[in-house]
């Protein structure tokens, strides 16, 4: 993708992924790598920071002789996600507006 997701948007995407249900690091990484081209190496620091900020918690589940660490959205994380959503809608509207202006002007010039 030509356009890349910045750190804040990546935070929001991680929170949104967890809103669908608790999941573990490898899954989140794969999902976001496929979804928005986030690099596999960038996810851990984000998860760790969100955990420290209290936006998500972890719990371990035993699976095939080892522990798998699951991440869960906290109420605080849900609140942050809602704020990001509202922000995104406004951001998208503004970008759309600018892009629409450009197209209108092009049409204007063509006539």
């Amino acid at each position: 993708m030509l356009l890349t997701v910045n750190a804040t948007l990546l935070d929001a995407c991680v929170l949104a992924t967890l809103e669908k249900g608790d999941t573990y690091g490898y899954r989140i990484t794969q999902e976001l790598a496929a979804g928005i081209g986030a690099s596999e190496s960038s996810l851990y620091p984000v998860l760790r920071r969100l955990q420290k900020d209290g936006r998500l918690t972890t719990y371990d589940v035993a699976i095939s002789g080892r522990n798998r660490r699951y991440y869960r959205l906290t109420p605080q994380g849900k609140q942050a996600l809602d704020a990001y959503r509202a922000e995104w809608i406004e951001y998208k509207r503004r970008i759309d507006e600018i892009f629409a202006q450009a197209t209108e002007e092009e049409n204007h010039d063509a006539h």
Partner: protein
Amino acid sequence: MTRTEFMAALRSRLSHLPAEEQDAALRYYEEYFDEADSEEEAARQLGSPADIAARILGENAQQQTAQPQMVPPQPAQPPKPKHSPWFWVGITALCIFASPFLLGLAGAALGLLIGAAAVVLALVVAVICPFLMLSVTMLATFVLCLYLAAGALGVFTPGAVLLAGIGLLCGALGVLSGIFTGYLCYWTGLLFGKLFRSCGRRKGAKA
């Protein structure tokens, strides 16, 4: 790069971090390798351990610098008084002991001011008075000439006309001079008004 090589490289680069941070990071990447179908593929996806370590170290440094901001702000300290009480005691004492000198100075300044005002007034009067006198004299001559001309009209007509002419000339000069005197008075008034107002302002500023 194999899983073992990757993890060893990451561990050595994170060795400066607190044990808790190191464990959390290493655990995450161990799990990542466990979950992946192929360890080589996982290592390839993750990229260089140096790059990953740099991100983790960067994030930690940011949090450490950001932490002081989370501490509730200290209650604002009351502003320090600019001068100690002794400073004001000293100033007061100085004022009292220096009062003869200060009063003398103030008296001298007042004297100078009054003197200057008197000089200005004298100059103005010296300029205005001649013009006023000229005006009065000319108008008086005008009246006198016309009176004489009226008397001489039947007796010696050319003389009467001459007198009347002189009288009119004097009258015109008198009127002009009067007007000029009026202007002089007006300008003087303005000058003195400004002078007194500026003095008043200076006194107001002192008080």
